[in-house]
């Protein structure tokens, strides 16, 4: 009697189909994800106990020294472009402001006034969740 056949371990699972699936998933997520553009400068948002969640979208950045950027534009041009882009959109989501916690609060107040003058009626300030 030949027992050789029964003693052989079962064949290993083939690795190639798994690699195919992994690459398929990888390509799927790469295509569907939107990669956030890098911050133009270091911004550390203030801590807040607020429960509202931040909306996705391209924010206006305000640095610790009061420098303002939106996309590639800086300063007043950035504010004007951000407001124009918001007005062109559906206007249901707020315009997002990502500001450093140590910036003078008057800068934010001034920015808000500038936005309001341009016609932006909804805006929100991003913050980090207070632990």
């Amino acid at each position, binding site marked *: 009697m030949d027992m050789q056949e029964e003693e052989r371990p079962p064949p290993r699972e083939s690795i190639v189909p798994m690699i195919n699936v992994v690459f398929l998933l990888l390509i799927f997520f790469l295509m569907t994800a939107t990669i956030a553009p890098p911050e133009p400068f270091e911004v550390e948002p203030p801590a807040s106990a607020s429960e509202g969640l931040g909306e996705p979208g391209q924010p206006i950045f305000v640095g610790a020294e009061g420098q303002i950027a939106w996309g590639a534009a800086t300063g007043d041009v950035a504010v004007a472009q951000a407001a124009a882009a918001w007005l062109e959109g559906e206007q249901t989501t707020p315009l997002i402001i990502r500001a450093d916690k140590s910036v003078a609060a*008057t800068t934010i107040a001034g920015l808000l006034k500038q936005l309001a003058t341009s016609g932006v009626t909804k805006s929100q300030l991003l913050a980090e969740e207070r632990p």
Partner: protein
Amino acid sequence: MPQSKAFSFDTSRRRRRPSLTPMVDVVFLLLVFFMLASRFGQDVALPLSPAVAGAGSYQGAPRLITVTADGARLNGVAFELSALPDELRKLMPDENATVVVRPDSEAALQDMVSVIDELSDAGIRQIVIAE
């Protein structure tokens, strides 16, 4: 006719398995890339409304909170942050009355966010930011 070697798809037992090391290299490269590129933690957000002249109906006594670097003043009188909501309610004709928050030149954004948090916690949500 002898079959060319390139077209022989017969399943030979001793098929060479693809080497795993380059694939693992690529996967780790992608992993490190996404770990460095992604921003973790869901941001919270506070809605900000600018004080626009003639935008709403302001009723009752003046309710102006001046945010300073070390606290807040209500109509010019310094109060502890925790005492602000109670003091404010005495001046509010109803629950949805508007409160004006105005930062002074020394206040950082974090100071203003803390004041807004304190008011929101107490249920005072109609806050406008004045310059």
